[in-house]
């Protein structure tokens, strides 16, 4: 386990801790990975901005000592798009939950990907709306239960990274709270990538998703996440049947394409402002 004391204190609003998340929630692990990633990437504190939407995960912004913008539900990427264009040097991390990003924010997600704007979208996917008490999201696997799908959801989930790839994202990676060091590396790679980077971070919600779907407590859920994870390299040796049971982690895709902010200012031939 990573302990808070080991993190760079200047990047944390320690007075705002302890956080509001439930015991066993993975949001703290992902947030810690993000803090370490910012440090490893070597970004200046003043250039780093955290934008978040609404939901459990979005409360991370309040604990991080940068300029932080806790926006409205689903709209974090649209807020971030305006901010990035106003100050292109900013390194913007957009923290969203699965519902926030892919349901109410789905339109902004695909269009940020289409523009290939240099934002780092960190989606904490716990398969559930936590803040409102356990409803299924577009990333909840089919058949899983929620308070609004007592017999299990009939809906099929998005494959988030493929959705982003189809829409034009140029970096897609998946990690989880079960492997925070890998997650940290993935965030660093995404942040250094010029273009729209999507990092899906699987994270346990023992309080709602775990309880509704008999996944056990925090330890069991983290272990299950870890056991089902397989690296991109490892996955190449598996047959499709085996792979369908697995969570492939690592950089899923990366490619070069023109970045929107840079393109914009090049087209105008002017400096911002």
């Amino acid at each position, binding site marked *: 386990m990573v302990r808070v004391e080991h993190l760079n204190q200047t990047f944390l609003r320690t007075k705002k801790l302890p956080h509001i998340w439930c015991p066993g929630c993975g949001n703290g692990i992902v947030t810690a990975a993000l803090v370490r990633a910012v440090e490893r990437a070597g970004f200046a504190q003043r250039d780093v901005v955290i934008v978040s939407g609404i939901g459990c995960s979005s409360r991370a912004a*309040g604990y991080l000592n940068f300029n932080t913008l806790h*926006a409205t539900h689903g709209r974090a990427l649209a*807020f*971030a798009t*305006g901010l990035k264009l*106003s*100050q292109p*040097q900013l390194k913007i991390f957009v923290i969203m939950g699965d519902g926030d990003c892919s349901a109410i924010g789905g339109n*902004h997600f695909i269009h940020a990907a289409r523009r290939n704007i240099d934002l780092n979208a960190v989606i904490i996917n716990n398969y559930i709306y936590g803040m409102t008490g356990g409803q299924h999201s577009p990333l909840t696997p089919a058949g899983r239960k929620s308070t609004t799908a007592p017999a299990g959801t009939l809906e099929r989930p998005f494959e988030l990274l493929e959705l982003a790839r189809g829409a034009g994202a140029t970096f897609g990676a998946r990690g989880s709270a079960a492997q925070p060091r890998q997650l940290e590396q993935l965030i660093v790679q995404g942040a250094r990538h010029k273009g729209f980077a999507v990092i899906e971070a699987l994270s346990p919600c023992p309080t709602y998703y775990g309880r509704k779907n008999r996944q056990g407590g925090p330890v069991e859920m983290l272990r299950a996440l870890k056991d089902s994870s397989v690296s991109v390299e490892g996955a190449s040796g598996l047959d499709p049947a085996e792979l369908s049971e697995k969570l492939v982690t690592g950089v899923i895709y990366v490619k070069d394409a023109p970045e929107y902010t840079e393109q914009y200012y090049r087209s105008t031939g002017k400096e911002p402002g």
Partner: protein
Amino acid sequence: MTEVKPVLMQGNVACAEGAITAGVRFYAGYPITPSTEIAEHMAERLPQVGGVFIQMEDEIAGIAAVIGASVGGMRALTATSGPGFSLKQENIGYAIMAEIPCVIVNVQRMGPSTGIPTAPAQGDVMQARWGTHGDHPIVVFSPASVYETFYLTIAAVNLSQKLRQPVILLMDEVVGHMREKVLIPEVGKLLVEKASDEIPPDWKPYDDKGLAPLVPFGSGHYYHVTGLFHDESGFPSGDPAVVSRSLERLHGKLEKYRHEVTFTSYIGHKEPRVAIVTYGCTVRSARAAIKKAYWQNRWPVGLLSLQTIWPFPAKEVEALARQVEMIMVPEMNMGQLVGEVERYSRGRAEVVPLNRYDGEMITPDQIFDQLRRWFA
């Protein structure tokens, strides 16, 4: 102020030019009739001045990006019409709560719903006031001419910055689409109010004592912006004392600067027996009627035109109600602002609505005929 050669300009273009003159360097929006010319003009002009134009994926993203850019230190504006204005409401509330300056233009069209996109109406008066949820303050200007559009846009931008408060420019299809003669000042000759770049040593992002400047992100002052109730530092608080103080402060700043945000003008008789109170394009019809009634017929009539409709110019209307026997309120809706006029007339004058809701302007004759009936 030096004014140069008069030019023919469309209302929507005057809005865009006014914004640029006032230092707006960011526009994000979504195409919608009858406001689209604002976006089109911004798309051409902003890149020339180092600004950013971006057409977003929807109306909500338009206002969201505007708020984002404003947090980044760019003066920002978005424009829309009724249906899009409805979609923007949640984020307008965010900007009020988080005290992010921005200007939202609504070129009103006939509604409800898709209505008649190219027909004029003044049906969004109450939406402009109460469209977003919660008990919020708002500033709304309503221009009656291309000239007023230019200058009220500048005022909207400046006051939005000063008060850290969204300002709505409630135009209508008539003013938005018509072209008329305007005098545009030379660039740089117009006062654009700029907040001091200096950050006070005891700066708090949301200072209880007054108007703390918005320090743009990226300048090394780390703070939190949220739509949750928050304390002076910007961090969420559910403390009842903090909550009530925040709300009182949001309302209080408009009350305190009421004289700066209230624009009205009066023409007509010094001691009128009958007055007209109106706003937007209907002012034009009322002015024509007043010219005939007062200048030609010498009837004791006057016209109070409201460039600011919210906060409602209560004192001005109250004073007028003390003077006159009757106040006529022509509006291109089924009666919206008339309720406020009635409220602040406090029974001192009879308040008579004059409504038209067929997608056409109220004519000077309609107003004149009402006056004639009164004086007959």
